[in-house]
């Protein structure tokens, strides 16, 4: 497309439409405006009621907490409309009459989960627990408890037509949940668990999320922390997956974490103080401190004013597709450290300047006991063996891995340059397989893209990631693609030629009438075509790979194994190519070694390159598949690695046997057609066609390269039989040159210097 003024304006307009979104709160219609106003009003009223709440008060109109477990046992069909008749709103106690939790569960939490006494000097907990933990989850009960009815307000529904301005009122109770998203139950017994913990220390104070200014809000920073908790659990085959993100409160002195998910049917933010004080210790101090924390968070972040349409959609989505979850976690104390030491560790991880801290021996953040309960689905789950390193430590490990990757890339670039230096003539490049290098190139190119994307996602690893991305990019798109262009250019002659013809190395005489293009396309057009193909296959490959990460485990594994196996068969096309080009055995090559065409008789690939490339490309796979604590959390499968290594060794062994025995040793003799030979006697008529020589030197032909006569062996003339037939060469197009002259020329181009028809390589 030609870029002129109009198209430019058009493009800018399109891009503007692409990247502009409704600014601010994202409201795009009257209907949405009313929706958001209603949500804000609801939150404001509930916050007012929260402000007046004391520890001895029951929840009044807080969405999701209007009913207690006792209410639902007494009357299963009870409606949660405030105020409920005969409900006691002026008292509070830690039992199922006032809580969403059954008495049995409250007892479990108090005796088994939050059982570590706080405050003693032996139990010190780290204040900063940014981490991602992994572990196992176990189902305790999914049918013992009665699910609590939680209505979803109707005004969350999207409009049914454009003319609608007012969202419907009222609430709706779902007995059968709409069948999309997650299952509203947990059906597996044992599963895997990932927990991501990040700290919520600073909040945006305005709606404009792009504003760099963030504000700290926590006045009790040494005792309480607000966390973002993301809990993800699934069965081993990943058929059933549950994700819950919530705001959590972390009690640093006692090592307790309480997280509750938030949705349009469950406004858990206002219930955190009550539930945090479940053990009813220390004179309601916990209640008032957590209430202050929530208040500060609410006021600093301007919670109501900063609500947007996307928040609204998310709340509605969570309400419909997911169960609400309450997580009660107890951390393992870091008893081996004092408070000062922990502070120093935190400072060093936050901003490394080489404080005297042994960073490699910092214990992981681990959860001693944990319980997950869903009030609206009635599911109870239990955490086992959950732990993970601090995020900063994990980043350090990843950084080391990336640096090792950088070294591998550098080694690969060096080897490729050696290989390019080794095959610097069209004749030698002609023997290299284009497809071998396309496979290698595809992997490098997708790695470059992957690193590039990762660099923008992980700002703390920007520099090493960008460097690896840069290295793999120049490896893939500069060196490898350049090399592929010259391979392609040297093999253009062979396009649309059958394998048998290729095996023979030249055209049979009867094929001569088929018109063949003698004009070889120039490198610019080839490179344009190849770059196009490179980027196209790269995009397709990356799309497939990135979508494959979300496939179910079984299909994903099959795809992964097949893809790795296929992409590690990169020497197979080269073995095939060697067979086609028919390289002589090593002994024969030594025998015919002449100084002028030494390069052309060698094996096309350097052994250094073959072995180095194989090792560089296999090492990461071996690491990922055999080292069980690898950073990708990939499962361990030694058998696959052994099979893959054997396959690679087999390929290399074939290549080696081709080097030693000749590249066609495995083909039966009769199936190998005779190749073209440049060294042959010529007929008298042929020599006459070429002028037949001067009077002084009869039976000679002029060499068009050095312009001096070439004595030739003519079958019919006895006197010329002393001439060595290896001293001149006859091309398929019947032109005659000195051997030295033509071999030199063939170092540059595989075309006849006289008529430009293509020449079979030596």
């Amino acid at each position, binding site marked *: 497309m030609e870029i002129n003024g109009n198209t430019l304006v058009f493009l800018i307009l399109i891009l503007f439409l692409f990247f502009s979104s409704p600014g601010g709160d994202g409201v795009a219609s009257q209907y949405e405006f009313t929706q958001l106003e209603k949500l804000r009003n609801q939150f404001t009223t509930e916050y007012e009621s929260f402000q007046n709440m004391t520890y001895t008060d029951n929840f009044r109109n807080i969405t999701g907490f209007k009913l207690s477990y006792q209410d639902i046992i007494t009357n299963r069909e009870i409606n949660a409309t405030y105020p409920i008749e005969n409900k006691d709103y002026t008292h509070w106690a830690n039992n199922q009459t006032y809580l969403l939790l059954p008495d049995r569960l409250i007892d479990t939490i108090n005796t088994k989960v939050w059982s570590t006494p706080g405050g003693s000097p032996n139990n010190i907990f780290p204040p900063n627990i940014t981490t991602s933990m992994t572990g196992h989850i176990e189902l305790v009960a999914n049918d013992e408890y009665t699910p609590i009815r939680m209505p979803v307000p109707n005004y969350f529904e999207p409009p049914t037509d454009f003319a609608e301005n007012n969202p419907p009122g009222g609430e709706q109770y779902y007995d059968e949940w709409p069948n999309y998203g997650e299952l509203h139950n947990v059906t597996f017994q044992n599963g895997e668990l990932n927990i991501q913990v990040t700290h919520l220390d600073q909040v945006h104070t305005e709606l404009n999320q792009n504003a760099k200014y963030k504000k700290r809000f926590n006045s009790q920073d040494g005792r309480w922390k607000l966390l973002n908790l993301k809990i993800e659990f699934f069965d081993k085959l990943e058929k059933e997956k549950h994700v819950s993100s919530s705001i959590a409160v972390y009690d640093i002195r006692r090592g307790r974490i309480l997280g509750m998910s938030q949705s349009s049917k469950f406004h858990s933010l206002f219930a955190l103080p009550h539930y945090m004080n479940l053990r009813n210790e220390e004179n309601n101090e916990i209640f008032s401190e957590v209430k202050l924390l929530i208040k500060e968070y609410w006021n600093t972040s301007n919670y109501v004013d900063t609500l947007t349409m996307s928040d609204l959609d998310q709340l509605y989505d969570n309400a419909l597709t997911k169960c609400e979850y309450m997580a009660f976690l107890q951390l393992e104390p870091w008893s081996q450290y004092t408070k000062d030491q922990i502070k120093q560790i935190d400072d060093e991880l936050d901003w*490394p*300047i*080489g404080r005297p801290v042994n960073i490699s021996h910092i214990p992981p953040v681990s959860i001693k006991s944990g319980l997950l309960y869903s009030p609206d689905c009635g599911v109870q789950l239990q955490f086992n063996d959950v732990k993970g390193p601090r995020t900063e430590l994990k980043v350090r490990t990843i950084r080391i891995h990336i640096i090792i990757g950088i070294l591998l890339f550098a080694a690969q670039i060096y080897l490729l340059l050696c290989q390019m230096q080794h095959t610097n003539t069209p004749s030698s490049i002609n023997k290299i397989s284009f497809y071998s290098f396309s496979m290698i190139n595809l992997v490098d190119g997708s790695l470059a893209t992957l690193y590039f994307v990762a660099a923008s996602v992980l700002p703390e690893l920007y520099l090493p990631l960008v460097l690896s991305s840069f290295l793999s990019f120049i490896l893939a798109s500069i060196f490898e693609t350049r090399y592929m262009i010259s391979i392609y250019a040297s093999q253009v002659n062979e396009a649309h030629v059958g394998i048998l013809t290729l095996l023979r190395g030249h055209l049979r005489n009867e094929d001569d009438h088929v018109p063949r293009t003698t004009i070889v396309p120039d490198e610019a057009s080839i490179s344009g075509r190849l770059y196009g193909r490179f980027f196209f296959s790269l995009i397709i490959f990356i799309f497939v790979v990135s979508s494959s990460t979300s496939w179910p485990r079984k299909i994903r594994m099959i795809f992964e194994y097949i893809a790795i196996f296929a992409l590690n068969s990169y020497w197979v096309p080269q073995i095939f190519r060697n067979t086609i080009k028919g390289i002589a055995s090593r002994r024969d090559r030594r025998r015919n070694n002449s100084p002028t065409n030494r390069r052309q008789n060698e094996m096309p690939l350097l052994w250094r390159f073959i072995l180095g490339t194989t090792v560089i490309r296999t090492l990461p796979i071996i690491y990922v598949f055999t080292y069980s604590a690898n950073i990708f959390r990939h499962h361990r499968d030694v058998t696959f690695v052994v099979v893959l290594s054997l396959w690679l060794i087999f390929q290399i062994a074939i290549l080696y046997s081709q080097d030693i025995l000749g590249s066609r040793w495995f083909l039966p003799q009769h199936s190998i057609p005779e190749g073209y030979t440049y060294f042959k006697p010529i007929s008298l008529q042929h020599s006459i066609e070429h002028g037949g020589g001067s009077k002084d030197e009869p039976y000679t032909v002029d060499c068009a390269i050095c312009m001096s006569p070439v004595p030739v062996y003519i079958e019919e003339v006895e006197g010329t039989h002393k001439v060595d037939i290896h001293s001149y060469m006859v091309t398929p197009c019947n032109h005659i040159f000195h051997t*030295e*002259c033509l071999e*030199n020329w063939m170092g540059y181009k595989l075309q006849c210097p006289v008529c430009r028809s293509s020449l079979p390589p030596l």
Partner: protein
Amino acid sequence: MSLEGPTGLFQYPVTKLAMICTGAIPLLAAIGGYKYLFITRYDPFISEYHQYYRLLTFQLASINESNVVLSILIWYQFRHLERLMGSYKYFSVITLLFLYTTLIISCSNLIFNAFLPWNIWNRFPSGSLPLLLSLFHFYKQYTPQIYQFEILLTKPIFSKSKDHNKQMKWELNDHFFLNTLIFILILNQDFVGIICGFVSWLCGVFVDKHLLPGLNKWRLPYIWRYFNEYKSVQYTSGTNNVDPTVGIIMSSNTYNNGQQFSSTTSVNTLLHNGNSHANNNNNNNNGSSNNGIGINISNPLQTQGTTQTTEEENAADEPVRPLGVQFLDTFRR
């Protein structure tokens, strides 16, 4: 002798090494996340954590990117020094100055902080600023000024005189670029840069005047072979058309050069009979006389310069191409 030295880094192995290290060490440290190893502060690293290794590392890499760029440019300007001293001696002098400046700055900081109650000298310079400043003395001392130029400002804005037609004149010479770079480098590290820069410049002066020993005696062990080999490879590569005796002379020249700057006589007597004796005397006078060192020293530099340039011309010769290749090259090009 040409007025200006050849551009580029051909046959400047030490300068090349210094430039690469100045750029590569901070880059690698940044990638690996170990940049903090090159930060030195008295409090807390020395006084509290007792990390005395930092007293040795603060000169190895700059923390600041602009300092890295400035240092690389200054190293490039200093390549005249390598030409003057020879690679081996230059390398030895660099290590000597590195040790002296590190030692003096570290020790004075420790003493300063130990005896004065309040902690006023906390920061250390970052990067090779002390080393560059002490080499700066050598550069100034032994590099003659080649030319001067004037910049005429017709209507200076800030001129106080009412006569606006009066011209303002800036007189600059060929050193002005280096001076500017050094000036920026010092200013870049504010107060510490000025103090430590001054101390290390003094250090350079003292080494030059033999108040601090080692200029003529201190040579790095073991590695001199590397420089000799480096040179001889360079020379033999271009000996196609050159009289073989010259090659031998050259290698002996570099050997002596590496041994001691003042004893290049064996070469000079062969090449410039009359000149070399004078040079020799001049060189011996260096230690005692303070006047006119620049002029005296510039003579051996002359002889060396000429020999090296002839050498470069020979080395730049292309190898002989056979006729066939020449013929094909015409096709190809």
